[in-house]
Structures are given as structure tokens and as C-alpha cells.
């Protein structure tokens, strides 16, 4: 027979779950993970660009969430709070590792399936394939950019933060954000063109 907490957990909404977890219920926390894991994982995948790294980051996000549960104010949205943890972890991690690994061509996942699924569904099949191919190119090109440009493009275009928010997150000036985005957009287009050229050179 399940414990009383167990029953409560099964019936609970996420705000109740947070409250139970804050009181120390591991069952409640596990249920929270299950409820939010896809959202957090997707977000981490977008930030890190591949499956393994997304998994590491997502795990760390939940561990940190567990350890800081007490500081979570319940009027806030739990999902938003988790996103914030993920973003901070990602940025801090990169900041710390910047000096050690300056990799211009950090590989990200091939993005093929990812892009295929994303392609909008209301278009015709041909358009859908073209769109999917384009998304795949963009995703690959993004992975070829150096960190500083990849970061601002992810934050601006994928996550839709404002210039000001990005400056705050990355602890740099507004001017830097502006110029990095401007250059980042040029570079990603150049990478896309390079990739397209490379594709044409490979005989089908």
C-alpha cells in the first residue's frame, strides 16, 4: 500500500509537489522531475547542441534545484526557475572553461532528426523537406561558430532574450552584445554557405 505522501504525490499539482518536496519528500521531487524533464532536456539540448551534454546539464539542473529547493519562492513558476538554473549553469560553465578550451569547431549533434521534426507541418511535402534541410544547415552552422557568437545567437534567436538581458547574463556591455550579434549573423551565414558548397561537392 502506498504511503500517504505517495498518494498525495500522485494527485498533486506541481505547486503542491514543490511544497511537498520542500518539506523533504523525495517522491514528490521525483514526480517533479518526471513532469519537467522533457522541457528541461529540450532547453539543455538547445543550449549545448548535443544529446550527451544536454543530459549532463539537465541532470545537474535538477540536482541543483533539489539542493536549492528551499530558496525557491512558490509564487514563481517552477519551470521558469529551472530554465534559469540551466542557463546560469551553461553560461558559468563556458565562462570557466573558456581559457582552457578554445575550440572553434566544437562539434554539435548532426541535428538531422531534430531539424526534420521541427520543420513546420502546414507546408507542402517538398517545402517541408527544403525547410528541414535548411534548419539542419542552420543547426550545423551554429555548431561551427566560436563560442562568443554561438552564445549570443542562441540567447537572442532561440531563447528570445532582449539585448539588455543578454548583456546582463553574459556580464558584458550592450555594445558588445550588439556587435557580437551583428558579426555572429554574418558568420553563421558564411558557414551556411560553406556547408552548402561542401554538400554540392559530395556526389549523391
Amino acid at each position, binding site marked *: 500500500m502506498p504511503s500517504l505522501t505517495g498518494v498525495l504525490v500522485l494527485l498533486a499539482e506541481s505547486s503542491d509537489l514543490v511544497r511537498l518536496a520542500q518539506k523533504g519528500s523525495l517522491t514528490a521531487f521525483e514526480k517533479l*522531475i518526471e513532469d519537467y*524533464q522533457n522541457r528541461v*532536456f529540450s532547453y539543455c539540448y538547445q543550449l549545448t547542441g548535443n*544529446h550527451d551534454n544536454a543530459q549532463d546539464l539537465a*541532470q545537474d539542473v535538477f540536482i541543483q534545484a533539489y539542493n536549492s529547493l528551499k530558496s525557491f519562492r512558490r509564487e514563481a513558476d517552477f519551470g521558469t526557475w529551472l530554465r534559469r538554473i540551466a542557463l546560469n549553469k551553461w553560461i558559468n560553465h563556458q565562462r570557466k572553461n573558456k581559457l582552457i*578550451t578554445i575550440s572553434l569547431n566544437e562539434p554539435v549533434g548532426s541535428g538531422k532528426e531534430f531539424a526534420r521534426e521541427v520543420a513546420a507541418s502546414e507546408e507542402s511535402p517538398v517545402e517541408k523537406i527544403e525547410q528541414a534541410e535548411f*534548419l539542419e544547415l542552420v543547426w550545423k552552422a551554429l555548431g561551427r561558430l566560436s563560442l562568443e557568437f554561438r552564445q549570443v545567437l542562441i540567447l537572442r534567436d532561440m531563447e528570445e532574450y532582449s539585448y539588455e538581458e543578454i548583456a546582463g547574463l553574459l556580464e558584458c556591455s550592450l555594445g558588445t552584445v550588439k556587435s557580437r*550579434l551583428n558579426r555572429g549573423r554574418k558568420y553563421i*551565414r558564411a558557414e551556411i554557405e560553406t556547408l552548402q558548397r561542401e554538400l554540392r561537392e559530395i556526389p549523391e
Partner: protein
Amino acid sequence: MGVNCIDAGEILSPFLDGELAREDERKLLEHLEGCPACSRELDEIRRVAAALSMLGQKQITAPAGFSSAVMARINEDKAGSTNKYRHLKQVAMGAAAVLLLAAGVATIKPELAGQVAQAPVQMESSGAPQTGAVNPDQKSPASESTGTPDQQNPSSAENSDPSSDKIVAENPNQGSGLYSASGSIEFTGDKEYIIVSTFLKFKVADSAEAEEQARSLAREYGVSMQSLGQQTIDGKQCLVEKIVVSSSNAQSLTASLRALGTLVSQDEQKADLTQRYGELYDKYITLKSERAQTQDTTQAAQLDQQIKKAEEQLRAWEQQSSNQTIVLWLQQ
């Protein structure tokens, strides 16, 4: 005055984001009307931005077993914390001593060059902690024996040492904080961290010429040579140089360097940091979990400091143990 294509190229991006001042926006729109090239450019930028935005909305499913992996880590942390706290104070002392050692190897100052050969040994022995066991799995040839008094200590304490079970992230499902393909601190327990420094003293016909020769040899191995300064020993000029080369190339570079002159003396120092690395890593993990739990801002700031230090140290050791430092004395 309107904008030309070059100016336009600079403001297309903020324009797209609605971050352009109204006046600039008006000028740009004016320019775009008469300039198909810039309009096309804007369309392209917009298309890529739209693609990124779509990629940003995609939901993907977390891998099977995700939540149990997280719960396992949480339970592991809980179970491990009591032991680790107890162990922490002992480790801290040993770690502090090792910090000195690593700093000593990394930054040999010119004025210290005369004592450089002894320096790591002294620091090593002063750092030999009471916890001081040798890694029983040690595979390194402990033959040259110039350094590391630790190696002679029997390691009976090893089994009772709570730090000996510090294998972390053995299960690939239990992430190790590796978010990017770039390195992150992880410790699998099976890697050795041994810092090797080789000291070569040559008698050469012309020290400046020998220096140049050494520099070009280093270059052949894709590494640079750093001048540590010069010293006058017995009224003779002596140049001191440092080369840091990957461990795999060290031996063959050392052999090539023999051509510089007459080898007067050669000395190799080894410091095995495997044990300490593990201990500091343990401390690092404990600090991180403490940091995550604390509500107190002062304490948090202190912990951040400590975490940062530990992390820098671990990285430094990783770096140093994958390389070998060669110090050259070129005496005329």
C-alpha cells in the same frame, strides 16, 4: 544624410531585433527601398533568425531512465556527505601544501633557478600529509626515485581512508557536469596525475647559439621555449630556459636536446599527485554541494572562492600532468 550599404550592413541586425533608434530605422528603411542587395541581405538574415527561433521551440524527450539517474545521484550525495565532511579537514591541509608544490613547478622564477632542482622535492616532502598513503595501483616506474618521499611510505592506512572510494561518474548515465565537448573537471579514479620535470645542464661553446638551437628544436615539436633568465655561476654566464612539452614527446625532445653541448647533469623530478587530486576533487564536490545548500550570502561567497581555487588547482594539475617540463641550463 542617408546611409550607404556599409552602414546598412552594420545595423541590419539591430534593426531586425527592434533595437535600432527610430531615426536610424527611418534612414535604413529609406536605403533599403532603393537597394535590392541590402534588402536581400536582410531577408537572408531574417530567414536564419527564423530558423533558429524554430529550432528553439522544439521539444524533445528526455532519455529513458532520466529521473532515476537524477534520483540516484541525489541519494548518493546524501549517503556520501557524512563521510566526506569528516574527511574534509584532513584533506584541506594536504591540499594547501600541494598548492605550493604545483605553483613551484609552474612558475620557476629566474632568481630561484639555482635551487630549482631541489624545489619540488622539498615542497613535496613538506606536503606529505598524515593521511599520506600511496596509491596502491601506482603503475609508474618508481625507479629514478629522486622525488616523492611518499613513494617509500607503506600505505597501510589506505583501506581505512574514506577517500579511497571516490570514484565518481563511473556510470555514464550519471552525468559528470560535462556540458560542452570541452573539458570539465571529472575524475574517474583510474587516471594518474604525475608531474614530471626534467633538468638538463649543458656546457656549451656559445650559450646564445645553444639557446637558439634549443628554441628551434622546441619549435619542431610545436612548442615554444620560455626564457627564465640568466645567472652567473662561477663567473660564467648561464642561460636558463623552460620548455613545456606533451609527455608523449618529452623523451624524444630530450634526446634531441643532447646535441646542444656536453651534458653536465641530468635530473628528473616526479611528483605523483593522483592521491591528492582525488582528495581535492572530493573536497571540490563537497564544497559544491555545500554551496548549493547554503542560504547565507557571506558563506556562499566564501564557498565560491574555495570552489574556484580548488577548480583552478585541479585544472592546473590536469594540465601539468599531461605535460612534462624541461628546464635547460646552458652554461658557457
